[in-house]
C-alpha cells in the first residue's frame, strides 16, 4: 500500500494490532488495554485519532491492501470517498461477486449526491481533521469473525 502512495502524502502511519515492519511508514501498535466503544478497525482509528498529533487538514484512511492509483488531490469537501475497484485474489468467483456487489460503481458515484451517503467504503476515505475530532470513531460497531486486521493512516495536506 505505502509504495503506491504519491510523494505528496509524506506523513504515513500504519496502525497495527501487533508489531509489523512497514517500509516508508511509522508503525504504531494499538495497546491491548486501550478501551473504547468501537472495535477492530474503528478501535484502531479511534486510538490513532486520540494519540497521534495531526496538524494536517485531512486524514486519509486506507486499508492495508488498498493500492492507490491516479491520486491527484481531493475535492473541497469534509468527507471524501476514494473510488473502489476490486483486485482478483485467489478466487475468480469471489472476484466476480465483488464486481457484482459494487454494481459497476453506480452507487459509489452517488456518494456526493445525497445529503446522507448510503454507503461509505472505509478502505479509502479522507476526513477533514476538525470533522474527525468532532465526530470521532468511538461508535459501537458490529463484532464479526473477520481476521484481525489493521487500518493504515496517512496524513495529507492536499
Amino acid at each position: 500500500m505505502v509504495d503506491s502512495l504519491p510523494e505528496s502524502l509524506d506523513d504515513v502511519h500504519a496502525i497495527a494490532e501487533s508489531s509489523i515492519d512497514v517500509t516508508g511508514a511509522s508503525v504504531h501498535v494499538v495497546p491491548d488495554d486501550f478501551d473504547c466503544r468501537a472495535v477492530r478497525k474503528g478501535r484502531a482509528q479511534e486510538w490513532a485519532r486520540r494519540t497521534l498529533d495531526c496538524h494536517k487538514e485531512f486524514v486519509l484512511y486506507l486499508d492495508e491492501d488498498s493500492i492507490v492509483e491516479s491520486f491527484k488531490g481531493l475535492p473541497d469537501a469534509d468527507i471524501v470517498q476514494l473510488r473502489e475497484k476490486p483486485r482478483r485474489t485467489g478466487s475468480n468467483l469471489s472476484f466476480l461477486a465483488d464486481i457484482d456487489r459494487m454494481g459497476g460503481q453506480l452507487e459509489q458515484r452517488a456518494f456526493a449526491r445525497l445529503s446522507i451517503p448510503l454507503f461509505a467504503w472505509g478502505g479509502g476515505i479522507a476526513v477533514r481533521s476538525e470533522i474527525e475530532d468532532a465526530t470521532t470513531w468511538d461508535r459501537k460497531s458490529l463484532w464479526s469473525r473477520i481476521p484481525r486486521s489493521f487500518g493504515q493512516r496517512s496524513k495529507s495536506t492536499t
Partner: protein
Amino acid sequence: MIFGLADAVCRNEAPPSLYEITQQCRRWAAGNLQASEILPFRYEVLTRVRNAAWALSPIFTLIVVPLSLLSVTVAYGGLFFAASMAGAVYARLVPLGCRLLRR
C-alpha cells in the same frame, strides 16, 4: 457536512472466497439495518434494496457463471426473460433512487 467523491481509485483485494464475501455482505447489511433507524424513510427503502442486492451478489455469481459456461438452455424462456427484466429494473432502483434524492 459536505461529501465528495475523489477521482483517485483504490484497488482493493476482493475477499478470497464466496464464503468470505457472504460474511462481508452479512456484516455490512447488519450494520445498515442497525443504522437504518436513524435514516429518513425514503433512505430506508434504498438501503433495504441495496442490502438485498449485496445479499444476492454471491448467489448471482453462483447461478450465472455456470449457466454461461455450460450454455444451458433455459426451460421456461418467457419466465426467465420476465425474471431477467425484473432483475434489471431492480438493479436500477438504487441509482434511480439516488438521482431522485439528490440534494
